[in-house]
């Protein structure tokens, strides 16, 4: 756990969620195991979006297998995500957040925010980029 050598990253990316127009503080509202699923999948969705809907794991196999990738492609596609999952994600997130928060969700906004650490350890918001707009 945390064995990899890391360097200070003053800029941090954070997922911001608004439910029915209200900020949703998932660090307080969701218990760890639940939060793990929601934030993990949103981050993966974001990764896929920035890689033009290509699953990073599929890229890993492409790099490792090189010219032999075509022979393994059907197997790799069974184990990775593509546009089918990508397009179904927002509906799933809506359903799962409704279950997790015990409320009807009419609108859902998810942003990827960039924050910068100040010398006193506090964070300042730099940018906010829309990732998901559901029901708006």
């Amino acid at each position, binding site marked *: 756990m945390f064995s990899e050598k890391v360097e200070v990253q003053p800029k941090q990316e954070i997922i911001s969620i608004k439910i029915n127009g209200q900020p949703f503080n998932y*660090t307080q509202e969701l218990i*760890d195991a639940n939060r*793990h*699923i929601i934030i993990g999948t949103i981050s993966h*969705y974001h990764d896929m979006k920035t890689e033009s809907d290509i699953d990073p794991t599929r890229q890993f196999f492409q790099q490792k297998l090189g010219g032999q990738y075509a022979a393994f492609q059907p197997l790799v596609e*069974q*184990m990775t995500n593509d546009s089918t999952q990508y397009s179904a994600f927002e509906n799933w997130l809506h359903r799962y957040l409704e279950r997790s928060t015990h409320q009807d969700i009419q609108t859902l906004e998810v942003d990827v925010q960039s924050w910068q650490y100040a010398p006193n350890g506090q*964070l300042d918001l730099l940018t906010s980029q829309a990732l998901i707009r559901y029901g708006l």
Partner: protein
Amino acid sequence: MDYRRLIFGRQRKKELPTLDMAQRKWLSRLVFGGVILSLLYRWWTHVLLSQLEAPVFIYPYVDLTYWALHLGQLPQFISSHYGLAIVFDVLLFVAALGSFFFVQKRIFPIAFGLLYLIYFVSYNSFGIHHTHCMVGILLVSIPFWFKNDRTFTLLWEGLRYFTLWVYFSAFLWKLLRGSLFNYEQGVANFMNENATHIALNPDGWLTPFYTFFIAHPSWSFVASTVAILMESLFVIGFFTKKYDWWWFVLPIAFHTMTYLFIHVMFYELLILNLTFLSFGGQIDKETKTFD
């Protein structure tokens, strides 16, 4: 060939303390009591397979077990059929409860171990991150699969060494990768793991604590080094059982620190602490031998 002689050599006559059925019963109640608590936690947090609303993403990454289960489409198939997912979750609870109440019926721990493997892979894959905190629950049922007391004891003792290895190998990784000597390690972890908490809770009661450590890298380095050195202590357990109560208590303190400092919730792993219980020294007084 006498494999026992090959493996144990000149120590073939050395005493092997063996846990008897009464002790197994106690252990079974403790272990599966913990397992039931873990399952209740997972039900409460909406992460059992029937509660996941048929998740769309999977993440087998580079792991043969995950590849095998996903190529067979098992996690996807169960989670996408609501009725089947409910049956799966009920069976998971039934297997854990059966292991707790009917200690001598080995079908329950066997069923639990196999069902939990599917749940373990599914949860980690659907969550897009292979967490380590459930490994204890995954492995702890295995000794109870076997009828023979000696086999049980060997596997239970093996689990004790595995638990020591979990913590000591964490130290070794940090030593060999050089992060133990990296001055920025502590403050970088504080910054990475607490950013969300600080951003969403600027007035939270723990926020001043985090910002202090971020603003004072030398204190972060000290905290990080203390935690890593705590992990190194577990090597002692490979050579003596004299301090097993320390290995029972230390992980509780360690995981409470990691939960408060960097929001890493590893309490489910504490089920492995049960391998350090000695039943008041009874196990060490047993006199059974290999022959």
